[in-house]
């Protein structure tokens, strides 16, 4: 993949696929890039579609932070590009379940 190519999407596109896995709305969570240390809400990642999956790259350095692929029976999730994921637990962060 030529990382100079304009990303087709952003992290908002990750919301649906990640909603199969996470019990909270994780696109509002903040991931820290293992490469450059930039902290970004997942909604702001540069996202490329590589069927059957999606690749989310750091807006700071283009390092791959998230890879998610769906097969008929499994979700493959690679978060190894992030050194931490901070998940807000207030209603404003979008994480509250509202129950």
């Amino acid at each position, binding site marked *: 993949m030529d990382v100079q190519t304009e990303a087709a999407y952003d992290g908002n596109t990750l919301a649906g696929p990640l909603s*199969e896995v996470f019990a909270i709305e994780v696109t509002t969570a903040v991931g820290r890039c293992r490469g450059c240390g930039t902290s970004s809400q997942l909604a702001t990642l540069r996202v490329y579609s590589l069927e059957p999956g999606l690749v989310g790259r750091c807006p700071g350095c283009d390092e791959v932070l998230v890879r998610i692929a769906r097969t008929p029976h499994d979700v493959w999730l690679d978060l190894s590009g992030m050194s931490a994921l901070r998940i807000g637990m207030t209603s404003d962060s979008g994480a509250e379940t509202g129950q």
Partner: protein
Amino acid sequence: MARAAVSGGLRVRRAWRPAVLVERRLETPSACTLALDVPGWPGHLAGQHVDVRLTAPDGYQAARSYSLAAPAHDERIEITVQAVPDGEVSSYLVGDATSGDSVEVRGPVGGWFVWRPEDTGPVLLVAGGSGVVPLMAMIRTRNGMAAAPFRLIYSVRGPDDRIYDHELRRRAAEDAGLEITAVYTRTAPDGEPRPTGRISIDDLVSYGWPAELEPTCYVCGPTGFVETVSNLLIFLGHDASKIRTERFGPSGPE
């Protein structure tokens, strides 16, 4: 549903639900609004998405994410789909789908590019092409009632590309605190004083809010458009944390 509709909209770990297409309206020659009945739909926030999945007779599946275009009416939701060249999902939804067709949906999803009616600060909406869809959901949710004043700058190639044209004109006249400006990049209607051209810093100064008012800015459109507008807003002094963006590919969300 016992849950409040809005907070229910943030519940996640979504499963695919069956949905039935109940209505379609052509918005422009290449964009179509589809109304879907979704049993058990939990409600949603303005700006959230729904994923739509089609299954071919041979079992092949394709899914795409679309912005919800309007508040839910009970279990009825609306999306507006722009046809994309060679788009396998959008070409079906815009061209072939008919009332009674079954699809599957997953959602609502997304929690970042959202506006809540209890947010009372000024809002700047900047749309490029079909990027107007989630912003229209915000305008419809606000519905002339909320305290927050809204300004929409809507960049389109020409008059024929304006989605929601009739309703936007009506709302500009009727909704208190809503101002709408169209920016034409290639063809302008007769009498349009602004020369055609891409959105500029002058447009954001003339038709947006001053940065000192600290508006929340929602920018949605093709990737290049979103990059340009968000960089201009930052140059004008808007805080990056007040700028929310949603990008779709060079030719539209598919």
